[in-house]
């Protein structure tokens, strides 16, 4: 088992024929992901990487039965693409695109929610169910199958965390990179119960960072609803206030959104909080041995 995606998931790629879309679609296919086609306006009817190209998401869904879309559309057009996916009945859009205007994502997410479409990202590495299905840009070889679920705002910290878990002799069920923008799709609060319900997941790693209050919401949720052990790391303990640390959402405004308040809230909720990402693997081993 796993969450969100597995070996049977049918995926289309929006922005299929572009440079990024092509490169990563190929990598995903090599990993075993069922990429069943893609969408590029005005290229409908062509074949790309041996898969059909469609003009619209509607056409693609009708012809392929895809339920998930991996979105590589450039920032200026990404909201349009996400809303198109929602309108066409896609169940989950994984938005890799970095640099989408906040106002656009606000609109696109509200529309997706209204249409019952889940979103992941934007500005994220995607989602991977180990050894089954990779929808995104992460290096697949790091993610060995196992019993640890992972939720992270950061791409490279996802790899770092997964790699440590594997080195400790464990592995990953599903890892979800939720992205570091101010407005994102699925977050800890929606993903934690999925891992709680997944029989194969025995422990959960959550990696957060400064800015916003998603981790605080997660802490409250964990306290009341999650029985599986959770290990957390919050990046940016040494980040200065008022500075944007790479990710558009990683900023301490005033006194809100600091690493400390998030770490305290998680600790109070019974989460094993580590001070350095170098300790994620060991902490997972510890909670699993209990």
């Amino acid at each position, binding site marked *: 088992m796993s969450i969100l995606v597995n070996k049977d998931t049918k995926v289309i790629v929006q922005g299929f024929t572009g440079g990024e879309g092509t490169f990563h679609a190929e990598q995903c296919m090599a990993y075993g992901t069922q990429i069943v086609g893609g969408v590029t306006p005005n290229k409908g009817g062509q074949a790309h990487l041996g898969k059909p190209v469609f003009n619209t998401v509607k056409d693609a869904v009708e012809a392929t039965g895809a339920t998930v879309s991996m979105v590589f559309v450039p920032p200026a057009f990404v909201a349009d693409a996400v809303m198109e996916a929602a309108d066409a009945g896609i169940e989950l859009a994984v938005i890799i695109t970095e640099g989408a*205007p906040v106002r656009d994502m606000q609109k696109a997410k509200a529309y997706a929610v209204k249409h019952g479409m889940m979103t992941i990202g934007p500005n994220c590495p995607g989602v991977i169910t180990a050894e089954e299905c990779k929808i995104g*840009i992460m290096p697949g070889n790091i993610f060995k199958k196992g019993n640890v679920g992972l939720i992270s705002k950061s791409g490279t910290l996802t790899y770092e965390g997964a790699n440590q878990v594997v080195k400790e002799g464990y592995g990953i069920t599903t890892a979800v990179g939720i992205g570091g923008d101010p407005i994102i799709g699925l977050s800890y609060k929606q993903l934690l119960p999925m891992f709680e319900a997944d029989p194969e997941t025995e422990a959960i790693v959550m990696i957060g*960072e400064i800015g916003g209050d998603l981790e605080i919401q997660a802490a409250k949720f964990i306290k009341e609803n999650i029985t599986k052990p959770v290990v957390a790391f919050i990046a940016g303990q*040494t980040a200065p206030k008022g500075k944007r640390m*790479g990710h558009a959402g*990683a900023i301490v405004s005033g006194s809100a959104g600091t690493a400390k308040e998030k770490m305290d809230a998680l600790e109070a909720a019974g989460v094993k909080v580590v001070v350095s990402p*170098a300790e994620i693997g060991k902490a997972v081993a510890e909670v699993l041995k209990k």
Partner: protein
Amino acid sequence: MNIHEYQAKQIFAEYGVPTPRGIVANTIEEAVEAAKELGGNIWVVKAQIHAGGRGLGGGVKLAKSIEEVEKYADEILGMTLVTHQTGPEGKLVQKVYIEEGADIKDELYLGVVLDRAKEMPVIMASTEGGMEIEKVAEETPDKIVKVAVDPAIGFQGFHGRELVFGLGITDKAEQRKFIDFASKLYQVYMDKDAEMIEINPLIKTGTGDFLALDGKMGFDDSALFRHPEIEAMRDITEEDPDEREAAKYGLSYIALDGEIGCMVNGAGLAMGTMDTINYMGGTPANFLDVGGKANAETVAKGFEIILKNPNVKAIFVNIFGGIVRCDRIANGILEATKMVDVHVPVIVRLDGTNAEEASEILKNANIANVIPATDLADGAQKAVAAAKGELS
């Protein structure tokens, strides 16, 4: 991206958000001309820098004659203004804004920001104008009225009513004026892809009119591509030159005050690396995300920028190679050390795809000050030791 007060007020004026009349000046002569053109017998001379707290720092002066305008413009232009937001080094004032005096009866606060939890813009208003709003939020949160506006429906009458009743504005004419003010400000926020707008204070005059006495605006960098008119307002002298230089090469750089330079791929891991250095007893000198394509050129540029900081005693290169293989990155780092004279120890941790090959490459290259590390903890430890001169 942020803009100056006078620029924010230009935008306000375009939307009919009332502001006092004012003219920006680059020289003392221009300041005097501006005061004459504005007329009247009272003016405010205001330093234009991208930081709050200007009044307390001596950057805002009330002038009661043309001579005083001249005197204050002379004082303020060219001064290094230090406020709680500039840091101890302060900011050089290159422009002043000459504004007509206003009849202040009440000082209020009005702002628009993104409420990340609600995922909507929120209008914040308070009767406690002129104070730092974060302080108000902490000490007397009930004095802040927050009204979230769903962009799908835009600013409606009820949003306005919640604001004026929340603020205790009872006069009907004043209610109308305030609601009009707030709805226009919301429109500015939406149309211009602003990240935040803050008017502190927003004043009520003796005649019951509302005026933006101050104006602060920040914009969503990701949306600037569709706002050339905002991009044109960029004042590069307000931006950190090293951060700007780094950005040209796709690097995200922020200077800190420690001793260990950091070069990392990915913003999260970059912060995590700083945190780990701190945890191990060292101090990070910077945040630096080299992005997804760590190659010889970007790494060389990264070294160059890090080494501009004279406090740097060691550099920790922490790369988690994913799609980009570690052996390639190792060769890139070696090449970069030839392009830039790196005079401090460089601890290199490469993990991920082809990490072992990378480690071999570094070992075989046998460059005196390039020290390989096996993982994040090992690398951070070695960097901390190297900065203290304890690494042989």
